[in-house]
């Protein structure tokens, strides 16, 4: 009897362990992954209006429309439909509200499988929204959330951010396309160095002005074009840099890995310079109270395209003349960028301030509170040295 009782107690105790079961487990197929998040100005879509008219309402202001791109959609649904036509691999879900987190949870009232943030790759914010709302407020949830990886990249969209999440190729996922396109910066320096959440966190909280790559879209096609500027003290979008400005920026920072300088020679024929290497050195000079910057740029490259049939690229004189033309072109590009930064927007997005803070920390402490203003009055000089090392495999 006693023995049986003992066995029973052990059994009951062990059931404590067993019936707990897999208490925090969540099978992967019961979840859905969102790969992209697009933030637009609050504007309810038709379905949402319809649902709300039937009473699907809660207390909110319609400030932000958040779109999540969910992958994959149920595969057996796809298999059935794919016989008729090619079906999309993703689905976009839009909700409007005034708290990103609440919107995220609101998705669970619309879809059977809740979304998880581990695989979020890109966040696209429309410039219109960034103009209205503070960037630090918009990004607060994604920076705070434990699931979302700090490697997630952030972009601006000139038009509606939702449009960048459409694609004309059904087998591709737009969020992944945007994510992979950032890797093309070794082909052209028009593609900026990525800005991920870790960097964004630092930039926002240090009240620096910064850039985010702009995406423009049309009918499911997208293009990286220039960058949007966030002003540090207001944390709002104030304007854009164009593609050329982004190129020039990479020359100042010396972080480009490849690209082109195209110019026209004295006969107005196209000649192109392929960037093989890029180096820049920024030095701050302090004379009394006056700050000035000097940037020396060095580059090696190749004369890769020459439409001028009257010239012979194998001649040294011609190459030297071409170098001059490219240098002039680059100087012009830099000048246009500097004018935009110093006169038009009065922001420093090229890292001059950081350079000063390293070289003259005392001086930096005094002026950092008003740096963007200060910067617009500081003279910057450039010294450009381009070297054409060869002219490819054709002599003529």
């Amino acid at each position: 009897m006693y023995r049986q009782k003992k066995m029973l107690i052990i059994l009951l105790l062990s059931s404590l362990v067993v019936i707990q079961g897999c208490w925090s487990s969540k099978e992967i197929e019961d979840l859905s992954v969102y790969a992209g998040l697009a933030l637009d100005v609050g504007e309810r879509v038709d379905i949402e209006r319809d649902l709300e008219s039937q009473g699907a309402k809660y207390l909110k202001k319609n400030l932000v429309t958040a779109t999540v791109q969910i992958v994959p959609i149920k595969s057996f649904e796809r298999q059935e439909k794919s016989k008729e036509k090619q079906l999309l691999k993703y689905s976009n879900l839009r909700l409007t509200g005034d708290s990103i987190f609440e919107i995220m949870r609101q998705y669970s009232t619309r879809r059977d499988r809740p979304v998880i943030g581990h695989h979020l790759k890109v966040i696209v914010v429309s410039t219109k929204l960034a103009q209205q709302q503070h960037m630090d407020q918009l990004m607060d949830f994604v920076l705070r959330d434990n699931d979302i990886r700090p490697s997630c990249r952030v972009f601006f969209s000139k038009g509606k951010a939702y449009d960048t999440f459409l694609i004309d190729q059904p087998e591709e996922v737009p969020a992944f396309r945007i994510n992979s396109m950032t890797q093309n910066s070794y082909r052209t320096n028009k593609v900026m160095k990525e800005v991920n959440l870790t960097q964004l966190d630092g930039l926002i909280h240090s009240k620096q002005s910064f850039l985010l790559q702009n995406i423009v879209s049309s009918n499911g096609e997208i293009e990286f074009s220039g960058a949007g500027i966030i002003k540090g003290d207001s944390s709002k979008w104030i304007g854009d840099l164009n593609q050329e400005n982004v190129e020039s920026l990479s020359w100042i920072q010396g972080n480009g890995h490849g690209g082109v300088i195209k110019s026209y020679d004295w006969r107005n024929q196209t000649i192109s310079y392929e960037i093989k290497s890029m180096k820049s050195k920024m030095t701050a000079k302090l004379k009394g109270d006056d700050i000035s910057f000097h940037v020396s740029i060095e580059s090696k490259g190749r004369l890769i395209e020459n439409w001028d049939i009257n010239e012979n690229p194998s001649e040294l004189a011609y190459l030297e003349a071409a170098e001059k033309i490219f240098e002039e072109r680059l100087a012009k590009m830099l000048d246009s960028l500097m004018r935009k930064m110093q006169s038009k927007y009065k922001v420093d997005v090229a890292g001059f301030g950081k350079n000063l803070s390293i070289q003259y920390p005392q001086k930096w402490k005094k002026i950092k509170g008003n740096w963007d203003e200060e910067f617009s009055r500081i003279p910057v000089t450039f010294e450009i040295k381009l070297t054409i090392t060869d002219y490819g495999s054709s002599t003529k």
Partner: protein
Amino acid sequence: MITLWTFITSNLPDWKMCAQALISMMIAIGIYFFNKYLRLIVAKKNAPIQKKENGDEHPAKSNLSVDYDENLNAIKQVISSNSDVHFREFQITDIQARATLIFVDGMQNEELISEHVMKILMSDTEKDITGINPLALSAYLLENVLPVCEAYEAADLRDLNQSVLKGCTALLIEGMPSALLIHASNMKSRAINEPSSEALLRGPRIGFTEVLSENTSMLRRQGFSDDLEINRYEVGARIKRKLVIAYMKEIVNQDLLQEVRDRIEKINIDFVAESGYVEQLIEDDYLSPFQQTQNTERPDRVINSLLEGRIAILLDGTPFALIVPVTFGMLLQSPEDYYDRWLPGTFLRMLRFFAAFLALMAPALYISFISFHPGLIPTELAITIIETRQGVPFPSLIEVLILEISIEILREAGIRLPKPIGPAMGIVGGLIIGEAAVQAGIVSPFLVIVVAVTAISSFSIPVYSAGITLRILRFGGMLCAAVLGMFGTILFFLFICGHLSKLKSFGVPYVTPLSPVRFSDWKDLFVRAPLPLMKKRPKMMKTQDKNRLS
């Protein structure tokens, strides 16, 4: 003072927290006592029985008398109830004496007996045995007449009977007060084959057989050394069997040798059928899933272990020798590591460590990734897994269990299948489990890869029984992963590590070069250092002679 007291009380946890802490403490203490209790059961039963059996077992010696018939009857009384004991009576012509050969059918070399005993005695021998006193006859026969190698006199009836049953042929002659025992046993043994459980590409293709004398001679034949000592024991209470321990007397640690001897002397069982019995009766911890002796069929493996200062235990009637003590590293080593050059040896060894890890943890990791941490899977893979798992109705644990258990059944069946249909069944089973289960939506294709990799990995472990250990533990890992995810998987791994570092084999810590750390032994753990670098014997064995090179 009062403020301090209120500060302390305000920070004390509430009663629920205290109760939780108490319960978890009770569980730990409970486990400790349960473990102690389990160990006690075996310790009691295995305790050597201090019985003075000598008095009962050996009655007063009854010597053979001069009377031939009386002797014959006495012998017949004891052993003639055995149908296989034969009595061959004949006449020795020279002295006109009756004689009897007593032997067990099938155990003696008949040709030798009839050629060298009967023929000589029955026909006229050149030697003259007529004038010899019957009392001195036996000595004369041994010295002058019988041309056999192993023969001796036996005067005790009991000895005589036992010897006959063991395979000797007894010769009883009228008028002679003792019998002659002619040892011409002819045990049939099989040919020496390549060991099937430990096949190698490079290395000697010789394996132990079931005959102990052949096995010990195989060890001797590895190369001449007067260092190699082989001691004989008899084990088994009812049916006795020969058991030998082999060691290098100038290398082996004396304490270890004494320990092995003590444990073998304590073996108390009716019959030792196989060296597995010995293994289980002398091991340190019967609750551990890890083997504490290594079994091998390879003489080269044994001799290498002896040179490291280990001890081999060989039992008659089985080709499996035991090597003690065993350390974890040995389970993942193959003799080939040493026969090949050191780079391939090192590579293969690392591969095996990796494979052992996979064999143990792969399904557990799969479960914890799928059910608990979808964020740890690369995005593209996560999407593919979601797509493929959408039709699967089971949680990942059940899914893995279905496939793992079917694979284990298939493997178990594969051993027993008759040779001609073995491969066919393998293909059918593999196809059904791999392809059809996916088609039927029972498991996901990704899992098939995981299970296949796991199965292959567990086959790459050179010691078969170590592979079984990992196969068993794998299921524990899967359960832990299903309950607590990655956290549980890591707990499970730590639990095994904890157990391993506590385990000892004949006083040598099981994971010794790792814990306790002996860096000089690491030369032969994950990597296999070039031979000239391995100048010393393993430190962990605490050998008498520390250097390999003279």
